[in-house]
């Protein structure tokens, strides 16, 4: 046990976490040349393309240092705010953390909040200044930032480059020298923390865990505490680049477990594994049932594909327990599902995975948060509204509450004004403003979660020229003056386009919605009026003029091929449209409200 080190990496997106992790694997000989592939830990195609880690992963490295053999368990963490609970569980499984900071960009909001999590868990922090070889690197200043933040000595900050491999030996040395070995009682009853699970088509769910006390043996009868379910440990082992089956995984180590579980829902990240016969009295603290934050309808473009969509969603849920869904129907879109997601990125990922892995073309409706409505009849009983059309008749509503968050934004001093105006426009109230350095400011706001859902990230990026990072945590429900904005096409209300918004913004958003839809909905052979309404009152109107001319003047030898391809593309595009009444609406129009400022 004294030669085991468990650590994770805390870094902002693009600060080079995955690349540096690859270098560690290289240096310790954990991968052969043949296995090398950029960003080894990011196994999903989507992760590699987007350059982010969606799920956390773990890998074990062997390393000889001063003549002694060490086992180093690297637990990779997701780098996006949607997955902050998963990050907290990965952190709980470690004794130390590498804090990777880009030498050009310095510390970002996400990094700080994860760092605080690590400090709360008493992790040993090893600060690393990455990308020092970049021409834009500013090592002195960023080192000062890190020293200010951690209260460490400048010489404790390791300079490294994931690209060239510079500094990797120093990092490994620090992991062994500075991070404490795990503590724990090998003879105590089994106590292990589940920090991740992965779905494998052939073997079912693979559960990743860290043993705090006791050991987990092949064939042992075990119990998951939170779900209160029992299993046999069919296979246990450690996580090299491929899995290595073992007779047991001992105190302090990290490993995987296969029990024949088929659905991801049964394995909850944060849960404790213990022995069935001799259970621990000491469950791992911090377990939470992850709740979805954002809801949206997902409908097949072709109504006939409903059953296939259900199958696809069920399969997705097998390996993504945070996805929840239930059937719903829409007057405009027919049968589909109301789905709950951890956040906007999670929603995009699900939509993309449905298209890529299951070849399903879907319409995703305007996302919303979960509201609490109280009626005059039962003013003390919350009625949960996960879909704007579920909001009871306004005349019967006593009040509506919406979820609020505490938002932390770190930006350059130059952009404070811009960021503040944006947050105020988004109904934020400033709580705190701290100068981390003379250049970098941390702003804290309380604001409605719903405002984050509506194009907040993109706007923040724009107003700060990319120099702002953002993190949030929920702080509970607050009463708000909310109304439902309805959209009518050709005088028919399209329920899938309704959104709950603050009454003061209705006029403005209604107008923009109409303009955006006019831009997105192709012209048809008749005029199409677009109206925005609150209750019976029309607050804005636009008209899509009828298409009068749709013919190419010339179609000779040189035009035929190009013209054919153009019309083929047009037909393919139409397949992604949904007919509502007699109006054909393209997929992206249903998300129009998110793109009002494009």
């Amino acid at each position, binding site marked *: 046990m004294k030669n085991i080190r468990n650590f994770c990496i805390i870094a902002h997106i693009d600060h080079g976490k995955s690349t540096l992790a690859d270098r560690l694997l290289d240096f310790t000989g954990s991968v052969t040349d043949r296995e090398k592939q950029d960003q080894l830990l990011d196994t999903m195609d989507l992760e590699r393309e987007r350059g982010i880690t969606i799920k956390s992963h773990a890998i074990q490295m062997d390393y000889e240092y001063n003549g002694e053999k060490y086992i180093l368990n690297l637990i990779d963490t997701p780098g996006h705010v949607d997955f902050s609970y998963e990050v907290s569980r990965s952190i709980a499984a470690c004794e130390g953390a590498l804090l990777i900071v880009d030498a050009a960009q310095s510390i970002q909001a996400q990094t700080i909040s994860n760092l605080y999590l690590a400090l709360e868990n008493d992790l040993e922090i090893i600060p690393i200044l990455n990308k020092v070889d970049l021409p834009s690197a500013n090592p002195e200043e960023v080192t000062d930032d890190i020293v200010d933040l951690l209260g460490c000595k400048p010489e404790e900050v390791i300079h490294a480059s994931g690209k060239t491999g510079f500094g990797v030996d120093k990092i490994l040395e620090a992991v062994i020298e500075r991070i404490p070995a795990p503590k724990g009682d090998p003879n105590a009853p089994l106590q292990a923390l589940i920090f991740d699970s992965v779905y494998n088509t052939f073997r079912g769910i693979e559960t990743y865990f860290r043993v705090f006390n006791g050991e987990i043996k092949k064939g042992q009868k075990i119990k998951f505490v939170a779900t209160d379910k029992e299993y046999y440990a069919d296979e246990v082992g450690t996580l090299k680049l491929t899995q290595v089956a073992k007779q047991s995984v001992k105190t302090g180590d990290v490993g995987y477990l296969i029990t024949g579980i088929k659905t991801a829902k049964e394995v909850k990240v944060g849960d404790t594994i213990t022995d069935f016969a001799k259970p621990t009295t000491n469950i791992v603290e911090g377990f939470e049932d992850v709740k979805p934050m954002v809801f949206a309808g997902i409908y097949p473009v072709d109504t006939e594909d409903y059953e296939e969509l259900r199958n696809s969603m069920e399969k997705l849920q097998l390996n993504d327990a945070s996805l929840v869904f239930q059937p719903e129907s829409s007057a405009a879109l027919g049968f589909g599902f109301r789905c709950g997601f951890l956040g906007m990125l999670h929603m995009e990922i699900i939509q993309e995975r449905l298209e890529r892995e299951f070849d399903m073309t879907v319409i995703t409706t305007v996302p919303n948060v979960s509201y609490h409505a109280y009626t005059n009849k039962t003013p003390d009983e919350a009625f949960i509204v996960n879909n704007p059309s579920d909001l009871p008749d306004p005349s019967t509503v006593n009040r509506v509450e919406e979820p609020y968050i505490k938002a932390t934004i770190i930006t350059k001093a130059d952009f404070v004004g811009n960021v503040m105006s944006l947050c105020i426009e988004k109904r934020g109230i400033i709580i705190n403003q701290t100068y981390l350095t003379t250049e970098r400011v941390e702003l804290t706001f309380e604001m409605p979660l719903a405002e984050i859902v509506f194009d907040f990230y993109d706007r923040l990026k724009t107003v700060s020229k990319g120099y702002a990072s953002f993190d949030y945590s929920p702080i509970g429900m607050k009463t708000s003056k909310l109304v439902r904005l309805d959209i009518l096409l050709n005088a028919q209300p399209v329920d899938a386009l309704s959104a709950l918004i603050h009454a003061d913004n209705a006029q403005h958003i209604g107008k923009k919605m109409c303009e955006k839809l006019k831009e997105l909905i192709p012209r048809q052979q008749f005029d199409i009026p677009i109206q925005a309404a609150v209750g019976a009152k029309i607050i804005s109107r636009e008209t899509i003029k009828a298409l*009068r*001319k*749709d013919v190419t003047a010339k*179609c000779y030898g040189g035009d*035929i*091929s190009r013209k054919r391809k153009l019309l083929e593309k*047009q*037909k393919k595009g139409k*397949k992604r449209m949904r007919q509502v009444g007699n109006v054909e609406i393209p997929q992206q129009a249903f998300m129009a409200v998110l793109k009002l400022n494009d």
Partner: protein
Amino acid sequence: MAGIYIHIPFCKQACFYCDFHFSTSLKKKDELVQALVKELELRKDELKNETIETIYFGGGTPSLLTNEELKLLIDSVYKHYQVAENPEITLEANPDDLSKSVIIQLSESPINRLSIGIQSFFEDDLKNMNRAHSSDEAKKCLKEATKYFDNITIDLIYGIPNMSLEKWNKNLEMTFGFGVNHISSYALTVEPNTAMAMFIKKGTYPPMDEDLALQHFNYLIEKTNEQGFVHYEISNFGKPNYFSKHNTSYWQGKSYLGIGPSAHSFYKNERSWNVSNNTKYIKAIQNKTLPNTAEHLSIQDEYNEYIMTGLRTIWGVSLEKIEKDFGKTFVEHLKISAKKYINEGLLEVSHQKTIITTKKGKFLIDGIASELFMI
């Protein structure tokens, strides 16, 4: 049965709406003509001894070539290909190149059809489009040309913003007055990356008006019909026996050989096109290589092209031909997808054998064709 298209990529000046391939520098003209001759020789076996029924000089502005240059090219065709008796040989020409002496010279050459880029008889329209000729030149040249050529087509542009119906009518009356037997008439179209597109974006030229274009189009159909023209393709109107044989072959899927930069060729189910760059073209041909790209048409592509071109013509698409050439699934697909448009009066079935576009459907035919495609 095949045609040869020869592309002459030079113009005196650039019309504001044009996105065809051309150069306004005539420096390379000699070299290019030599390359065209060479390409005709290099490709002599491609059409597998099919008879050449039509030769078409398009551009650009082919009337920039001298009589000798035209003769050299026509002779090369005769030398390397099997040419039918009395082939249709068309020359696209601009009024400013067609002096009386040139017209007489041309009438004595094998060229037997002139396609004259009149566009409008009004000075302001010509100036606004940056045409090289004047209103006077247009009228004078037509007066002479009709004396020496019986087979003349002229280009007219309609839907020019703010062009009144009276003005459009005057252009048509003038055309009829000269006794031409064929008209190609195009709605002014803003192609991306043209000067006109930029002017509209900047606000210095008015945007297109679809309602106006449709009004002009319907008027054009009505007036040409009164004069005995047949509206045999969306933009083409000819008196009987004066349809363009060469262009018709494009719409009927016949073979053609495209010579010169940017020219397209079609044989069986392969289409190829030369590079749209004069220098690259000349260099490659000098090295005895063809600077072209080819695509193989799948049965689906061929069906889609047949639908797209067929519905633009008076001949429509034949259900029998589709069944014979493409099979039952294609006929069924067509019948099902056409139903909606038949009900809306945009398409109609003639003698249960062919689907043709109604007058109402003609100005919307691209979207309709797209819907009938097999994807």
